[in-house]
């Protein structure tokens, strides 16, 4: 395989905040992967004798480390499964967003002329509208199901990725290796798949680290509104919405998932900044 992964500079290593961020993200990913093994309870396991039990350190017992909710369900267990759902949705959606955006951006750059103008107009329209409103309208028109919801979340940021991919393709053309390969007699598709795409992967991955935490936020927002992930599945937004009813009596129901949302979003964006710094564009 002639294609290499983006090279990382070997000289600099992560500073403390980046290491903390990486640690947190790793923790979240591991929690999501092995949720079934580490969650102490089933997410629907009701324990009516211990309803609204506080977390350890606030008068609670080791039985329910992060306390319980209004039905006596274990908050820690629900949290772990919610992380899993939120990350899975965001992961799938980010993949869709980068894929669709790249395809559209390359298409615009390749065809140029009218095709490019039309696609650029679509990109501008999407960029000028708040995504949440568009998503809500689509949910109203199309109804909700998990696959549809993930696809819909995959529309988040497609316009940004498309702009980026178009820019990368145009830059590659200007750089010479793309036109050099084309003049060898290569089919344009080959030029895109074998040259421009591999040369763009690093940048597109960095863009994905920007898209990912934003999708986590949008997903949790929609789920909070009751229009995203539907019960019996739980996501971080669903938990926040449930906790809101008990904000006075059991604030942990609200605080635990909120904290996870905030920390994850901050950590991923810190990590994204680091990654961006590490990708050495000149490959010296």
């Amino acid at each position, binding site marked *: 395989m002639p294609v290499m992964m983006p090279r990382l500079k070997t000289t600099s290593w992560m500073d403390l905040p980046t290491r903390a961020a990486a640690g947190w993200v790793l923790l979240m990913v591991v929690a999501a992967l092995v949720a079934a093994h580490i969650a102490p309870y089933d997410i629907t396991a009701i324990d009516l004798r211990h309803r609204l039990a506080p977390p350890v350190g606030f008068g609670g017992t080791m039985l329910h480390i992060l306390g319980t909710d209004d039905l006596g369900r274990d908050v820690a267990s629900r949290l772990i499964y919610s992380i899993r759902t939120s990350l899975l949705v965001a992961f799938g959606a980010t993949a869709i967003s980068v894929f669709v955006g790249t395809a559209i951006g390359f298409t615009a750059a390749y065809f140029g002329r009218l095709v490019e103008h039309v696609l650029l107009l679509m990109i501008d329209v999407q960029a000028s509208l*708040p995504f949440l409103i568009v998503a809500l309208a689509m949910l109203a028109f199309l109804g909700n199901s998990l696959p549809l919801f993930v696809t819909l979340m995959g529309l988040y940021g497609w316009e940004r990725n498309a702009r980026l991919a178009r820019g990368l393709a145009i830059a590659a053309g200007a750089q010479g290796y793309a036109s050099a390969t084309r003049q060898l007699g290569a089919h344009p598709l080959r030029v895109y798949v074998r040259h421009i795409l591999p040369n763009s992967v690093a940048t597109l991955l960095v863009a994905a680290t920007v898209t990912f935490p934003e999708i986590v936020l949008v997903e949790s927002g929609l789920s909070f509104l009751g229009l995203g992930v539907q019960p019996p599945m739980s996501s971080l937004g669903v938990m926040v919405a449930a906790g809101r009813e008990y904000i006075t009596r059991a604030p942990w129901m609200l605080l635990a998932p909120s904290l996870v949302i905030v920390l994850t979003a901050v950590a991923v964006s810190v990590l994204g900044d680091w990654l961006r710094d590490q990708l050495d564009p000149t490959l010296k």
Partner: protein
Amino acid sequence: MTATIIGFVGPKVLRAALSILVVVTLTFVVLRASGDPALQILGPSARAADLEAFRRHWGLDQPLSLQYLRYIQAAFHGDFGNSMLGGKPALDIVLERVPLTLALMIPSLILTMLIGIPVGAYAAMHRDSWVDRSVMMLTVLGFTVPSFVLGLLLILIFSVTLGLFPSGGADRAAGFVLPVLTLGIGGAAIIARFTRSAMIEVLSQLYVVAASAKGVTWRQVVRQHALPNAIIPVLTLFGLMLGGQVAGAVLVENVFGWPGIGQLLVVSVANRDHAVVQVILLLVTLTMTSANLLMDLLYGVFDPRLRASSAGSH
């Protein structure tokens, strides 16, 4: 001169109009692709005669191209039919809620500016100081704490724990303090970051000016040149930020039980009240498109060089 102005304004207006057409068209396509509107709107329990009447009334028995034209025509008049709930025209229902949403958004946008610009400017002028660094750290939080979480935290602190403000409701003046604060803080973080980087750029250019202009203090240079120049990009950002504020308003209204458009939207989506959702979508599209157009034009007014070059290149 007039030719230049038309050359500058014309394409932008055309683009704005095209954007709106794209949204209306896509709405039509999605709605038609998602199934029989009569069945969806009247529900599966509707009588056949009602369905028939509905289809005839909305021209659904006509060819698709004609339906499309009628749809555009209706959209142009804001006529999307009646809301399923209450049966009033959807447009009226939405317009009723507009003042309430504006009552949140306008103060919060002002708050955004009042906090964001001075903080960003101060951070830029004391670059790399501890103040600058803490401001930057705080703005990251401002970016990443979603408004519904922030709103709930404010309720927890100011309303549940301290008992200072009510946790919502549009019936009391104090009820709007927390929602406005929630919306304003997130926006302020963005504005502060942006002002800071715009200021730093302008300042670095100004060192040259200041070095050559004798007898003028640094403070005067900043006041006369840096701030006005830095405000131009901040102004355009404002147009972009509006979108975030609209989305934020939807969440915040639902956190605080504020009966504006955002709450109406969520209820309508949950009930799949197509008419109301379409009106809101179009309203947001119109608002965003005109805001962007306005910012574009203002940018041209503030920066004549841009006007000249953009008229020349398109």
